């Protein structure tokens, strides 16, 4: 694929170092790795020590320090991919390319790696080849792809166009996100009621952060508006890394206009001139569409000086590309990343609305939040409020994947029950559902009459769903699922604080003990207790939520675990795999 260099220069107020990630991208795409020389060059350019530049490069897993092949293959290793045949596809790639996982083949043509969820859970098994999507893989398809690449085809010419798979939207034109979008209409409606009116309507609409934290949007916007500064930023968090979530991908693919217009309204309300979309590296293939949309909006006068014809309101948007780091979805880590640093979450001294990007007041919202804000003003408040249930108006996008007939996007009205959603998607023998991704909540099918809404702050009765809904049937191995989640967190921890960096590693060892059938009751108790320690002591949301799935599953599926591990309850002798322990030595038997 031809190196696609983002065309938009830095905004005038940003220091040069903010471009570090972009430089690394250019080098990675051109050289296929980040060499020592390249690091030294960048370090000199930005007045850093070499090791600091190396620290930034090695934080993001799409930047490789050794040659990653002329064609770099990233196979999705999320749990959904595993259910849909990840192992078969991996061996097919190994066989066809001659490369082993985590290395290149002898000629350096293909590099084969795995990566966490790439936002295509409804079309698994899937992979990114040279950052272009390939979906619904099977052995035959893999052979064809590799053959054509060998023949000289570019990945971007032969890749798939991921389906949108919008399976359900409320009938009778009650959809919010997928109604025809008329550019500029929402912005005009917002400017007619002035920033105060915008905040008021947001408050009444009860719109809240759709990344999964559900913080009231109007409060955040109002807080950001309240700080005066020379410049402010509006940032769209499109680092949709939570495994099983792909709603933002579909929004950016199909309705990028509504997202950008939502940002523009936010800029108008809080008094910001600069908007930045932080797009995750896995969605690099969406970059062109987004930039085209930005370009079209500039041409239409909806971005730029006096945007939307509002006198004195200047607003422009650019896209910043991540490079493979789940933790950058955490808003302060995202800000660090945009500043050209390692994406390590900040300590919570200041909220971004006060000191965010470049220490300026910064508004960070999720893709869906901006889209919803735009639609709110496009449809009008009264119309918006007619959806959903009292106290939780509107609709929610949910990415459904796993053991069901119709994986894809479901736009449900708040108040829909789990059972209703399971019926709609044709769930097959559902047993265990992971809501809002591995860091979210696990529910048993026994709880299927719970509603999905924003009503319950602690989510004890109703479920607050950030966007992902992974369904597992009764034949699935719970320990295997938990181990996949745990390995994901181990890989994605930023490595700053002890409980998250070491804790996930330790839990992985423990879960391996479970998987090998060596666990007894004390191991289960330890898992619970260690999970709580990590939750209470970790520095950011990643570590605090990484053990949710483990502790909740152990409680909700206590019978399952008792049946599987109860037999090992011999208090004097621990289970020990003697054969495995001596197998390495046995190879020396003459």
């Amino acid at each position, binding site marked *: 694929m031809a190196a696609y260099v983002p065309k938009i220069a830095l905004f005038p107020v940003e220091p040069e170092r903010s471009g570090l990630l972009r430089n690394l991208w250019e080098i990675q795409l051109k050289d296929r790795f980040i060499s020592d020389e390249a690091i030294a060059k960048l370090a000199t350019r930005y*007045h*850093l*020590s*070499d*090791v*600091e530049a*190396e*620290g930034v490069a*090695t*934080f*993001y*897993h799409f930047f490789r320090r050794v040659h990653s092949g002329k064609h770099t293959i990233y196979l999705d290793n999320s749990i959904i991919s595993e259910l849909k045949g990840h192992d078969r596809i991996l061996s097919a790639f190994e066989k066809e390319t001659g490369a082993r996982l985590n290395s290149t083949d002898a000629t350096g043509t293909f590099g084969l790696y795995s990566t966490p969820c790439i936002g295509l859970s409804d079309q698994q098994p899937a992979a990114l080849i040279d950052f272009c999507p390939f979906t619904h893989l099977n052995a035959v398809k893999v052979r064809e792809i590799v053959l054509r690449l060998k023949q000289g085809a570019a990945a971007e010419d032969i890749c798939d166009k991921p389906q949108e798979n919008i399976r359900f939207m409320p009938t009778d034109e009650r959809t919010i996100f997928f109604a025809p979008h008329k550019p500029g209409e929402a912005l005009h409606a917002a400017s007619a009621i002035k920033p105060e009116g915008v905040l008021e309507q947001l408050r009444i609409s009860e719109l809240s952060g759709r990344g999964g934290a559900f913080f009231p949007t109007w409060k955040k916007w109002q807080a950001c508006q309240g700080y005066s500064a020379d410049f402010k930023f509006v940032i769209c968090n499109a680092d949709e890394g939570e495994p099983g979530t792909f709603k933002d991908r579909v929004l950016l693919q199909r309705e990028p206009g509504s997202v950008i217009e939502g940002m523009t309204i936010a800029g108008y309300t809080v008094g910001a001139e600069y908007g930045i979309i932080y797009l995750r590296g896995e969605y690099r293939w969406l970059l062109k569409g987004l930039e085209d949309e930005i370009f079209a909006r500039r041409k239409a006068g909806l971005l730029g000086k006096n945007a939307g014809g509002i006198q004195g309101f200047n607003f422009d948007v650019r896209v910043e590309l991540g490079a493979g*780091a789940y933790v950058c979805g955490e808003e302060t880590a995202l800000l660090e990343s945009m500043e050209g640093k*390692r994406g*390590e979450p900040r*300590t*919570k*001294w200041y909220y971004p609305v006060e000191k965010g990007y470049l220490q300026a007041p910064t508004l960070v919202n999720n893709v869906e939040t901006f889209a919803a804000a735009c639609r709110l003003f496009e449809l009008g408040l009264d119309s918006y409020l007619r959806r959903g249930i009292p106290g939780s108006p509107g609709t929610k996008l949910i990415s459904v994947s796993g053991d069901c007939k119709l994986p894809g996007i479901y736009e449900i009205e708040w108040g829909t029950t789990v059972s209703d959603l399971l019926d709609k998607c044709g769930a097959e023998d559902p047993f265990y559902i992971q809501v809002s991704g591995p860091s979210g909540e696990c529910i048993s099918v026994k709880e299927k009459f719970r509603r999905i809404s924003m009503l319950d702050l602690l989510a004890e009765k109703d479920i607050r769903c950030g966007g992902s809904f992974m369904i597992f049937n009764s034949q699935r191995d719970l320990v295997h699922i938990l181990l996949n989640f745990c390995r994901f967190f*181990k*890989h*994605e*921890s*930023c*490595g*700053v*604080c*002890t*409980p998250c*960096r*070491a*804790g*996930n*590693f*330790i839990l992985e*060892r*423990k879960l391996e003990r479970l998987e090998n059938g060596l666990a007894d009751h004390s191991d289960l108790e*330890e898992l619970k207790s*260690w999970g709580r*320690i990590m939750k*209470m*002591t*970790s*520095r950011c949301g990643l570590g605090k939520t990484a053990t949710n799935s483990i502790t909740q599953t152990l409680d909700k599926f206590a019978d399952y675990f008792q049946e599987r591990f109860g037999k090992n309850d011999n*208090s*004097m*002798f*621990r289970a*020990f795999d*003697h054969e*495995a*322990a*001596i*197998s*390495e*030595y*046995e*190879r*020396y*038997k*003459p």
Partner: protein
Amino acid sequence: MATCTFWMDGKAYQAEEGTNLVDAAKENGVFIPSLCYFKHIDPPLGTCRTCTCKINGRYNPACTEYVKEGLKVEVNTPELVDMRKALVEMMFAEGNHFCPACEKSGNCDLQHMGYELGITTSRFPHLFKDRIIDYRPKRMVMEHNRCIKCKRCVEEVLTADGRRVFTSVNRGNETFIGIDYAQEAKLTEAEAENAMKICPTGAIIVRGKSFTKPFGDRAFDLKSSQTHFAKRVAEKPAVANFEKKTIATVSLAGCFGCHMSLLDIDTDILDVVELVSFNKSPLTDIKNFTRRCHLGLVEGGCCNDENIETLRKFREMCDILVVVGECAVWGGLPSMRNTVPLSECLDEAYLNSVTSVPGADIVPYHEDLPKILDRVYACHEIVKVDYTIPGCPPSPNHMWKVIRGLLWGEDLSVLYSEFKYD
């Protein structure tokens, strides 16, 4: 600034407003353990989480909190004490910390915290991740096995032109603190030594400078940071019934050092003859159990299948099983091989070694020989262990005290100096 009143565990204390909570607590005689916290670094790092308290109802590290009027802090609830202990245990499990072989022993904040929190063993499995020791810097050695990634050096050690010498590299459990060789060379002698000094473990070592202060004379050799150290250890009710008891002892993958230490109890050894008879033990040379024993003392971990069989036999034949010394507790020095695959160890020892006899290059294997395990296992991974006496070796008096306590219910209070086991 004005003095303000804040609350710790329901008691009112005074401190200057804006003081860091860790310092304010210390000024008031309340001990909050901390590792990454370093006065000069502002804002605080908040990386190690060892000072986690419940502050105004939320679990947060004390080092990222400043004292203000009415601040309510819970410090010493059982849960918080256990959590902080767990965090330090986690660091021991994550790195490869061999205190008996470490230059920093006695000057090490991590080791010190281990003592202060009364850690005898880590509840977490040791990870034995293979980490390198970087000898390439001109003046320093980076011992990645010992690094806890607190980032003190990252923030504090800069060259004259403001460039970093240390930075985190990689991500997740692969994270390590990289050192820039070119920048390191630019540091002055004093700056380099300061880097070693601010490192809370023995990860940064300046060549030729690591033993300037001899053992026994180091920062944490004699005194605890807590005024009532011994009080934290529960006392047992005295039962003065000195009935004669039977003990068995064994050394598995150990060096017999713990046995030597046990014999080193001075005149108390005369009591031993009166109070105890030894069954299976290297001291009596009884090879097999002839009766059930009250107490079993196990030195060393399990490195071969014979060790496992012996350990299981001990569990079967002893009412109380006590593991003695680092090797038995978590693997100790023999487990240094755990970061390397067994075949590499054997090949290096028998096939590729410079001293191996040409032509006789085979790895010993015979059906009569015990089979070597893939790694060294701690005793508690094989059988249930009742008590743990750490140390390398444990102090003789301490061991004897514990044995008396276990067998006859004598008072057991542990002094700081006795608890020291490096």
